[in-house]
């Protein structure tokens, strides 16, 4: 049985912050990822390759076993409907917050607010947990615009420094969740390639504990 390990990593900030972590356990891409246009990156380890893909695709790749491991933000995992993977490590990278926010100086309590968000499942769950009915408006970006133009009353979005909110006259209301990136593992792979994957998890877990 081959113990090949494919790691699907979210493009962008998560990928940039994950590379140094992987380097600490001696997994280093052969090509320079900044210059390479390859979608599959071979590494110095014969049996390890890295896929650089859209964040929302990572859970799909891992759940279906196209990749054994994945690195994805908790926001994406919370939004994803499915439990075909394990989530053993909190990598502590790409940290931010999932926030509910609204316009400054506007009444916060609304009977049935319209919420603009990319994260429809998270928003639905969050509000239904304390029995509040909301209307969700799915948008794919620039949430901050929605309350300004009256498209929505409030927004649910990822907030890092909060500067974008402030610049657009919005204030944070509630913190819905703390977000950071997780290592996820396909359930079948965890059993079939137990030795290889367990040792990978242990090594990675050790370097993170040191970092903390």
């Amino acid at each position: 049985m081959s113990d090949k390990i494919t790691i699907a990593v979210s493009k962008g900030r998560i990928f940039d912050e994950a590379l140094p972590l992987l380097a600490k356990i001696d997994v280093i891409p052969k090509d320079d990822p900044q210059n390479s246009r390859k979608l599959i990156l071979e590494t110095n380890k014969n049996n390890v390759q890295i896929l650089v893909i859209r964040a929302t695709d990572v859970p799909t790749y891992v759940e279906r076993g196209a990749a054994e491991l994945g690195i994805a933000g908790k926001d994406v995992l919370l939004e994803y409907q499915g439990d075909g993977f394990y989530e053993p490590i909190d990598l502590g990278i790409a940290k931010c917050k999932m926030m509910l926010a609204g316009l400054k100086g506007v009444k916060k309590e609304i009977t049935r607010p319209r919420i603009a968000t990319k994260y429809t499942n998270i928003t639905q769950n969050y509000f239904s947990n304390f029995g509040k009915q909301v209307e969700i408006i799915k948008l794919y970006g620039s949430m901050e615009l929605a309350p300004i133009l009256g498209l929505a009353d409030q927004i649910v979005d990822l907030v890092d420094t909060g500067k974008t909110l402030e610049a657009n006259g919005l204030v944070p209301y509630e913190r819905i969740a703390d977000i950071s990136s997780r290592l996820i593992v396909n359930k079948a792979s965890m059993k079939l390639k137990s030795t290889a994957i367990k040792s990978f998890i242990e090594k990675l877990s050790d370097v993170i504990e040191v970092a903390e």
Partner: protein
Amino acid sequence: MNTNNRWLLPEGVDEILPPKAILLEQICRKIIDLYTTWGYEFVIPPMVEYLESLLTATGEDLDLQTYKITDQISGRLMGVRADITPQVARIDAHLMKQDTPTRLCYLGSVLHSRSDSFGDSRSPLQLGAELFGHAGVSSDIEIVKLMLATLNSLEIDNICIDIGHIGIFRSLISESKLTPEKEMEVFEIVKRKAKDELKKFYKKLKINDNSSKALLDLVDLHGDVSILEDATKSIAKFFPEVKKHINEIKAVSESIADEPNLSINVDLAELRGYNYHTGMIYTAYVPDEGKGVAFGGRYDDIGRAFGRARPATGFSADVKQLLELHNCEKVKITRIFAPSDSDPALKKKIKDLREQGKIVVQELEGQKHTAVEMNCSLSLIHENNDWIIKDNKK
């Protein structure tokens, strides 16, 4: 609806065409024959029945998966079965009424209102075997062996059997002093093996008792059988009940240790079917298949609602999934083309061939298609006053 789309099947609903369909049928026969030789009696439960009996003691998951329809005669709700196991349990508990161990097997289509986010099919062809009336480990062993025999009979190799035990998590969580809501949270975390999250959870609640330590250990207790030793040292010390569960897993894994091309994985934090299973659970995996191929486990309480609680264990699989793993290309189907001819000798020849189990396709009057066009590699030819079979290529 656009008329161009009339052929379209609903999402997750599939059909099987030649030549695969006959192969699937052969696989089904082969497996049912196998179960019969092991003493499992075949039952055919109905496609629909009243919802209460379908959903008894099965938890919310199955409820969401079940299509509901109103019975025009009684006004009651009926469900299209999403799983045959509860039906078979009902048959054992209510209709068979025997105290001896009962062995039943079944095969049938089930319908899922939504595909598991994973499996694509909403219409699996479920096949399974259940053993009622024995609480000991030897019935678990029999079921695991039958599960392996099923896969072996289809020449599916390099199987990995994953064994877990729901009782371990149950014992540990029942020792914790958490509210039911918090218990649920721990369950959700352990299910995902999210050790870091579990650490944070306990830290936040300032819990550091034996139960929490054991649950943190539990998350990492998966791998080859050697982890059973680790578990005995770390967890079973404080929880004597767990020791018993570990020994059960040991007994099952030892019983199949000699099987060729088989690897055994133990996962003490596996919680598949937690609402439904009561003891050991076993799942078969094969390389390059991102999900399990056969699922089994003990579910002792299900018969209670039907008036008779009986120990029960069993497993099931989707034959359509097994078909994909079975090497279909190896199977060659040879068809013989017979011309349209009223010669009595030809009639007799065709009859004889068919009795031998050969496939003979006879030409229809006025037909212009050749043997090859009709997918026949052989033809019946009249030569020297006899009908003989010739290869069409020569």
